[in-house]
């Protein structure tokens, strides 16, 4: 990420950093899932560079990963807390890593702090995100087959065993 400009996030007001640019994009295949990764940090793309390339066609059935490197997030990774609440799975490792996986919308959205180095990213963060994505995709496919939304929301036991 460019470090020669210091954004103020005041014009327009964006204290939540929703509009932090994520100009880098790559598609990859994660099992049978077509993954579209958007980020502001080329290191994240590098971390998934070994994965096979995915389809870039807009029609491709895709799962969005939007991971933003946040230079203002303080602290190191702390213990992992996973919260499963309806269609959203949340991951918190302190301010250095907060991620939400929306199983219905097939989106993984999160912020990674500057202190999280490549090793921690590859060995600790990405494997967990991949597993959660697999859970989300499986749920979405089951939902498409049965049309039973309630089954997806209540079936947490299977997720537990996977984790």
């Amino acid at each position: 990420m460019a470090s020669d400009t210091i954004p103020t996030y005041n014009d327009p007001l964006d204290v939540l950093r929703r509009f932090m640019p994520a100009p880098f994009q790559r598609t990859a295949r994660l099992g049978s899932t077509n993954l579209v990764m958007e980020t502001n940090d080329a290191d994240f793309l590098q971390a998934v560079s070994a994965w096979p390339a995915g389809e870039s066609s807009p029609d491709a059935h895709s799962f969005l990963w939007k991971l933003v490197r946040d230079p203002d997030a303080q602290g190191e990774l702390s213990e992992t807390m996973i919260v499963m609440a309806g269609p959203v799975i949340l991951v918190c490792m302190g301010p250095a890593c907060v991620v939400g996986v929306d199983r219905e919308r097939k989106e993984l959205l999160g912020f990674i702090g500057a202190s999280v180095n490549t090793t921690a990213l590859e060995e600790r963060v990405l494997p967990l995100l991949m597993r959660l994505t697999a859970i989300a995709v499986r749920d979405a496919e089951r939902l498409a087959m049965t049309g039973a939304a309630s089954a997806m929301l209540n079936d947490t036991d299977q997720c537990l065993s996977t984790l």
Partner: protein
Amino acid sequence: MGIKKQLFENFAFPLQIRTIRRSEIGRVTGMSLTCNMLSGLTQRVVFHATVCSIVTKLHILSHGTLPLRAEVYVAGTRCSLLTNSRAVLGAVSRWSCSPGSRTDRSFEMAVMVDASLVSARTREPYFRGLHHLVFAVFGRQEFFSFDLERQRVTGVISAKTANDTRFWNTVFLPATMGVLGAALGLAPVDAACLDRNGRGLLIAGVSGAGKSTLAVAASQNGFDLVSDGWTYLARNGNDLTAYGLSVPVRLLPDAVRHFPELRNCRTGKALKGEMAFAADARRVFGVKMQRQSSPLCVLFLERVQQPGCDFVAYEQEEARRFFESSVECLPPQLADAAAQRSGTIRSLTDRPCWLLRTGESPQKTAEAVSRFFERI
């Protein structure tokens, strides 16, 4: 104990497994790091292991795990609260629904209290958002998420925080309404709100203009105080209602010049990190508080050097731009909420707007505002 003896004992029982926490490098022996390095060099054995992933907490939030529930009414919005803790219910009890509390706006809040979590809210809370999700981390481990699409708040907190009434009423619920407000059909605006006989007056202005000081002074001069900072606007048909959260008023340290009552109060760090008094307006200043009002007009406060108070008509379009620029930008996923919020702001600025230029003390300005409001 000598190094030789220690080495011997550790080689004799090489797999004393220590608890590995908060660390990515764990040692699977009972030796110190120095002994490990020494044995690595002399014996060419390494006892270090990299711990790749430590999942210490997994919480499933459902009706089964959160058996307690309550209905609370915050800023004209009904909140269905689910929790596993009676302390949480107690902390928000002041917001309990009265029989007449009716609204179409509602959201769900699921809060799990984990007794093993440690409350360490020493630094500023960390708020971030992407698309429809907003995350909030308090300290190291306490965590909330706000789902703006589904109007749902989810969180895991410590027992200490669950019991912290001040946290709920002055930090978390105001933050929740700020984050979730637009998705619920509210327009949170940076303005104080005063009420006189059900008629509301909003005081807006740039940061540091003296909105809170004037609001307190006016509350000592015939007005009731609805809010000194963030005010939450809602359209109910053709009516516009302004809600406050009865949180302590925030006054900068130099406000003690105008309010001797503050001499016995202490300053503290506000949510944004600045030092300020946080005073219970009812207790410290003896003012009357209201939870809501119907805005009649808006005053834009401007400090000037010249003495006197001047009221000048303010362009409605200018007023609209001011409020639009003071609210958080919303992503395309929340376009409907953004449009609704803009409609509410327009409804406010369709009311008479005035620029108040004052070089007087808050008390004298409040007297002028009181006289001016009577004439409207």
